[in-house]
């Protein structure tokens, strides 16, 4: 039985060693994460704003949407909405002008920590009222204090609930409007 115990102890030590030897997150690790928002209700035919929250990991920064140099890659959000849901203006926050050890005398306009992108979503009048998923990608290029990582795409998605909204008074026939041109 003593042999069994020794064998078990040795094997468990081996497992512990293997587990401890697992590599740290490498250069391919995500440096930006996305926190999906609670479902936002938008009324058919009316614009609604969805706030999308992202977080840049500690020690990293990414270029803002308007970086300070033409060569730097801006952070951009591309969204792919279902038919009859229109993606309107995408508003990016202002970046922060920061100095870094590698860029003495030059300030870079960057996002660090939490930042939010606001998106206007407008379901058309004819959309069936239900939940819709909107998928997209945040393109960013991250650096730390000494190195930069290739541009990356962060896949993300959020849901909107399209509500029917209050019934409005019957609309005039556009053809009868004196302002109608066709």
């Amino acid at each position, binding site marked *: 039985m003593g042999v069994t115990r020794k064998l078990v102890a040795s094997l468990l030590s081996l497992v512990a060693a293997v587990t401890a030897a697992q*590599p740290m997150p490498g250069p*391919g690790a995500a440096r930006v994460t996305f926190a999906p928002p609670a479902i936002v209700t938008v009324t058919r035919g009316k614009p609604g704003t969805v706030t999308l929250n992202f977080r840049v990991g500690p020690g990293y920064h990414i270029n803002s949407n308007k970086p300070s140099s033409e060569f730097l890659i801006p952070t951009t959000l591309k969204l792919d909405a279902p038919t009859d849901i229109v993606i309107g203006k995408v508003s990016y926050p202002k970046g922060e002008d920061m100095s870094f050890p590698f860029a*003495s005398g030059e300030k870079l306009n960057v996002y660090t920590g939490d930042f939010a992108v606001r998106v206007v979503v407008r379901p058309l009048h004819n959309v069936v009222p239900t939940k819709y998923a909107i998928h997209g990608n945040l393109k960013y290029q991250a650096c730390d204090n000494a190195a*930069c990582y290739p541009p990356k795409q962060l896949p993300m998605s959020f849901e909107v609930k399209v509500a029917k909204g209050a019934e409005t008074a019957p609309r005039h026939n556009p053809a009868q409007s004196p302002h109608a041109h066709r």
Partner: protein
Amino acid sequence: MKRNPLIIVVVAVVVALMLFIGIHTARRSGPGSAAASLDIKGHAAPEFALQSLDNKTVHLSDFRGKAVLLNFWATWCSPCKIEMPWFVELQQQYGPQGLQVIGIAMDDASKEDIAKFAKDLGVNYPILLGKESVGEAYGGVQFLPTTFFIDRDGKVLEREFGLKSRSIFEDNIKKALGRGQPVQAQK
């Protein structure tokens, strides 16, 4: 010989656990990380054939007999902008002794943009248009800048990841110049 069933169970559990950890790690790491773990220090520098900004095909072997500072960079890499003027100076200073700086642009930018960037920084050494396969051959260049120091015999003497001090680069250049046999380089 009598086998204790407990031992068999424990061995089976441990093997299964290690397999799980191994598979999980391989999935998490991805192909790039496997390449990153490949350390080519002390080995022959992988040969490459890359196009230069003036449309010539340049091989690493063209510089055999010289000490080569091989710098992977990109136009979007701000720390690279700090190093490159140092490399210009170091090329001027140590070029007569046999140093050749080579920049490999790991960029999606156009050749014209890369050329403009290099010109703005006064680059006086060849800039080559990088390929992912070359980065992989050098162990997976997953962040920039990454710089390799190759001695006169074509062996990778040292590599530096990220921005380092000028003195570290200079020390590595001196080591690379001092090692290997100087021969008449083709270029």
